[in-house]
């Protein structure tokens, strides 16, 4: 696996911010429109972290106009310009999938 590890290293970001499940983050995304590039911010709560190394990803959930929206990001993707930690929060679980249910009930 050594060669593959070395290869993956080229694509890994030198430093990822430290954050945990439960934290609220602001993900700055590079969006290309034609030949122009701009940044878009997706902010929400991290409800899951998965994978390791080049495969590592997180699921961010936010409530947009009363509707729950989730996006999965590959942490080492070059499309992510920056991950900002807006709020630290201790979660009692590794995956906060239960938050989906709570919102649905509130909506009813």
């Amino acid at each position: 696996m050594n060669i593959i590890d070395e290869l993956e290293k080229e694509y890994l970001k030198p430093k990822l911010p430290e954050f945990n499940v439960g934290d609220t983050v602001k993900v700055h995304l590079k969006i290309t429109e034609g030949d122009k590039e701009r940044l878009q911010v997706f902010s929400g709560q991290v409800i899951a972290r998965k994978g390791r190394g080049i495969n590592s990803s997180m699921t961010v959930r936010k409530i947009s106009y009363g509707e729950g929206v989730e996006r999965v990001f590959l942490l080492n993707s070059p499309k992510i310009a920056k991950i900002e930690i807006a709020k630290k929060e201790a979660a009692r679980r590794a995956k906060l999938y239960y938050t989906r249910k709570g919102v649905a009930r509130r909506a009813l």
Partner: protein
Amino acid sequence: MKIYKMGILGKKLGMTQVFTDDGKAVPVTVVQSGPCTVVQIKGDTSGDYSAIQLGFDDPREKSLSKSIKGHFAKAKTASFKILREIRLPSEETKGFSVGQVITADIFTENDFVDVSGVSKGKGFAGVIKRHHFHGFDAGHGTHECFRHGGSVGQHTFPGRIFRGMKMSGHMGNAQRTVQNLKVVRVIKDKNLLLIRGAVPGPTGAYLVVKKAIKKKPRPAAKKGGA
């Protein structure tokens, strides 16, 4: 008419994913491709076909027989673990010489390749795994036959089972070729090919990577296109 394309021997090192310049994650298989040495050139004179014979990977000394040692001694090359012939038109074989080293740089990015190898053995497999049959309902009164194939024929006429009927049996561990895989990256100094998608066999399997017989590389896409 058969088309013969240049190829190289390789070893599957495993899979991972990489990011392209525009930020897309691409699943790739890493293949150690070469260095291969030309051990023999078969022209039309030495048989009824023309090919080049390539050697790849270091062998265990004790596993080499005298006859194969003699073969390498005749070619004045080092010994190799794997010998495979790449069939080529006779006019193309003239471009090679015995002892010549072939490396991964016969391919470039965005080339399409066909990858052959021996697929993973699955043993005696049922029809669901082997032929993608659907099986039967888990409920609604299904009794015992959840993963069976169902009927295989008709009645007194034709009174036999048609040839080639899909049934359970041995699956895998057979030579397979995956066509039209894209070369995502070539790492020349390490002789590595990053090929998009999966290739036959387990990690460590020996492969033959050839230029695709069907698909041709597209000219580089315009940058900044919608």
